[in-house]
């Protein structure tokens, strides 16, 4: 239904354009149910039904962008979007010339609809809550349809629609030790959910052991896939984006300008082959299915938007305007999951990390915290959970000469973020074994 609505709106907008005017339109929205759980009880619950339309308007080498809420009432929306085009038309006359404007040129078309099997909103609580009783279960249930569309004045048109759910949760012991898990998918299966929760509850047992407080210092460390996903998220912030390298605010500048390398075991790609996220960007441009970014520790490609390509005389690989990773995949290695503790020997096992930030972006140094199931390991055996520790280390160390091994299986870590609406993306990555990792506080 929303696809039809978008088609009518976009056709009317394109038809209203005057000579020399160009436009790219992006549509997005969700019909979602949210249930917030604290200690296996419901704290807040509700539904969100919203959509908006984004405009990227170009005339006379001036560019102005906007977005407006879409009500679903066709008459109102038609009037609102045409008024918005008039507002953009007027504003464009007041702006300075933009030398890096890229005209919409792609007339590519695509449509993808993933039908799911979701819980009925009135039955969700009865399906979800009983399995979590008897344990301090805290988290968020998100479920529903997400849709995204794109159209432009060159004739391009794309539609993507999917139904998904996720239960992102923490299990917490009386001494505040935690295990993190996310049950996500598009086809609900009650038995699978209950088994998944049971399995994560069983992992909580070890967290009841008395936690150890370890001293700051460098430790042999294993970081599990979820923690690696947090590290990889930093590559979207002053990392693999070409504009940030050109403009001097970038942690990988040393790789571009000074010949620095990471470990030959480290491989990172933008890879859309799993179909979780749409390949088209806000301008309707379709990215290659796979772009190798760091290969055997060498920076061989960056994410380049068409605007950046025009400014710096490069070839676009149709990244989004922010040049962040939309579907990151890290290459696997040869460390069998069953051998992780044995290979670690004595050191720390970190399941998750928390609140990462660049402590020195140019130096590639990242600080953050350990969180959830993090253990002290001796001679390949888990001894006890550790008190949370702060780390502060350069990726040129821990993804460089200190990267000893990479596990052989990459896990899919869904992005359950909901700041601008429910996210679709995921980070696919293995775990990493480090010779040393700096814990500082």
């Amino acid at each position, binding site marked *: 239904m929303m696809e039809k609505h978008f088609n009518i709106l976009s056709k009317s907008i394109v038809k209203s354009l005057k000579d020399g005017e160009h436009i790219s339109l992006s549509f997005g929205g969700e019909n979602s149910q949210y249930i917030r759980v604290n200690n296996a009880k419901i704290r807040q619950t509700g539904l969100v039904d919203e959509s908006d339309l984004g405009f990227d308007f170009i005339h006379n080498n001036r560019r102005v962008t906007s977005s407006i809420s879409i009500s679903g009432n066709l008459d109102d929306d038609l009037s609102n979007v045409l008024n918005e085009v008039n507002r953009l038309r007027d504003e464009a006359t007041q702006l300075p010339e933009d030398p890096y404007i890229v005209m919409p040129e792609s007339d590519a078309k695509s449509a993808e609809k993933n039908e799911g099997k979701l819980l009925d909103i009135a039955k969700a609580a009865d399906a979800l*809550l009983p399995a979590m009783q008897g344990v301090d279960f805290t988290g968020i249930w998100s479920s529903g349809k997400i849709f995204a569309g794109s159209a432009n004045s060159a004739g391009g048109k794309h539609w993507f629609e999917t139904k998904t759910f996720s239960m992102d949760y923490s299990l917490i012991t009386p001494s505040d030790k935690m295990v993190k898990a996310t049950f996500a998918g598009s086809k609900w299966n009650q038995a699978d959910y209950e088994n998944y929760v049971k399995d994560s509850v069983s992992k909580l047992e070890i967290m009841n052991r008395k936690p150890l407080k370890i001293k700051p210092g460098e430790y042999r460390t294993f970081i599990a896939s979820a923690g690696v996903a947090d590290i990889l998220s930093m590559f979207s912030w002053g990392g693999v984006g070409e504009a940030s390298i050109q403009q001097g605010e970038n942690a990988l500048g040393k790789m571009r300008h000074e010949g620095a390398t990471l470990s030959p075991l480290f491989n990172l790609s933008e890879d859309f082959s799993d179909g979780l996220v749409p390949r088209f960007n806000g301008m309707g441009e379709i990215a290659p299915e796979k772009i190798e970014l760091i290969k055997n520790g060498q920076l061989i490609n960056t994410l380049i938007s068409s605007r950046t390509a025009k400014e710096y005389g490069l070839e676009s690989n149709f990244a989004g305007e922010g040049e962040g990773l939309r579907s990151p995949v890290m290459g696997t290695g040869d460390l069998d999951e069953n051998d992780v503790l044995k290979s670690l020997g004595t050191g720390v096992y970190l399941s998750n990390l928390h609140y990462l930030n660049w402590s020195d972006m140019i130096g590639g140094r990242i600080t953050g915290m350990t969180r959830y199931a993090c253990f002290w390991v001796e001679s390949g055996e888990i001894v006890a959970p550790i008190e949370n520790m702060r780390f502060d280390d350069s990726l040129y160390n821990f993804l460089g000469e200190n990267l000893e091994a990479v596990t052989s299986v990459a896990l899919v870590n869904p992005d359950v973020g909901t700041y601008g609406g429910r996210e679709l993306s995921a980070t696919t990555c293995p775990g990493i074994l480090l010779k040393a990792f700096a814990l500082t506080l």
Partner: protein
Amino acid sequence: MNLQSLLAKIDVSADWVGLRYVRENTTFRLVRDKKPEANDRESKEGIMVEVLVDGQFAYYGTTKMDAKSVQAAAERAVVIAKATSQYSIYSFTDKARPVAKGSYQSPFQKELMSPKDLNNLLVKATERLKVSDKIVTTNAMARIVETDSHYVSSNGSDVEQSFLMVSADYAVVAQDGSVTQKRTDGGLLAKSYQTGMEVFDEASILKRCEKIGNEAIELLTAEECPTGSTNLVLAPDQMMLQIHESVGHPLEIDRILGDERNYAGSSFVKLGDFGKLQYGSKLMNITFDPTVEGEFASYAFDDGGDKAKKEFIIKDGILERGLGGAESRERSGLKGVANFRASSFNRAPIDRMANLNLEAGESGFNDIISSVEKGVYMTSNRSWSIDDYRNKFQFGCEYGKLIENGKLTKTVKNPNYRSITNPFWNSLKMVGNTDTFEVYGTPFCGKGEPNQTIRVGHASPTCLFENIEVFGGA
């Protein structure tokens, strides 16, 4: 839109119904190196329908605002509330939505500035920022938010609030060989206020831009910040972040009650700590105050209808009161504040810190510096990270100065410090007077499931802390 009329037409079986309409226009303009990089406006408009049934609140946030859609939204919210009430964490009554009537308008002198005039000013700012060929990137940005909200409820609330908020920043990246440094106007968008376009005073902005450019050049040849335990003097534009992360978040009662444990985290503070915990030294006085004129998160009522007023949160170092709205106060039995706030029509209100300020003390800036034999002065936040219980933090600043024998001496680059919240605030040795007091804010405080970004304001004088671990860059 006649919200009272919409409310009157809703026909559902509920103990309470509320409507909260929000319309928000966010205009963002960015000029990089004299060229327009962004001229954008995001307009959001919608309604949150909220019902209370069998002790459980349920909401429906929607962009569909006709009477038929609002009725359908209320019916769906009732279905949800009924289906979930047997699992409620707390059985609420409409006491959690106190009756409120009133209005609010942000203070401003000049409401509008044309796209042309603002772009021209930002272009001039980037010209002035480029004080040397070693300045490789210049940015000038302005973010203007106009928000109208209207809240009505079946128990008689009717509150209309209009906000005009402006954030601006001017920044450079300087490079010399392998050395790169960034300087901004007090930290990214830290100059965030409820104000009008009068903040875009050209003479003041161009003067600041020249200083920003010159300080970035100065940092290129500066020594690294030394490593060790020393006296630390923090400027108000860093105190903002310090208060936000290590006082505001740990005192949000919903965190203490465990709501945020799967996302933003919990708190080292326990329910039993209120009235007892020596949070900081006796010089520490923290107030929650949404009534400060022009501070970024001022308002007359929160989104649950609680009337805003100034409250002491920490007095003479002792923790007095938590940051919790009506729902958290009922659940915890603690005293709280009017801070039950939502980011928009599509999110339910939760406990947010709004304006949280450190009250001025008695020491002048020169008194503070001259009292220090050896130490580091740091200004303008650039890096922030703290654990999920709000204990172990590490913060970095853009610009530092050594303090030697009571005087500010050499500039140092990459100044960082780390500590633990309680011992840190108990090491507060001097608090600056009103001459050192400055007001800041940020539009980007993230919290909640589903996630919400909201504005907060923080004001502080310059402060001295003793025996803090400081260090430099990679």
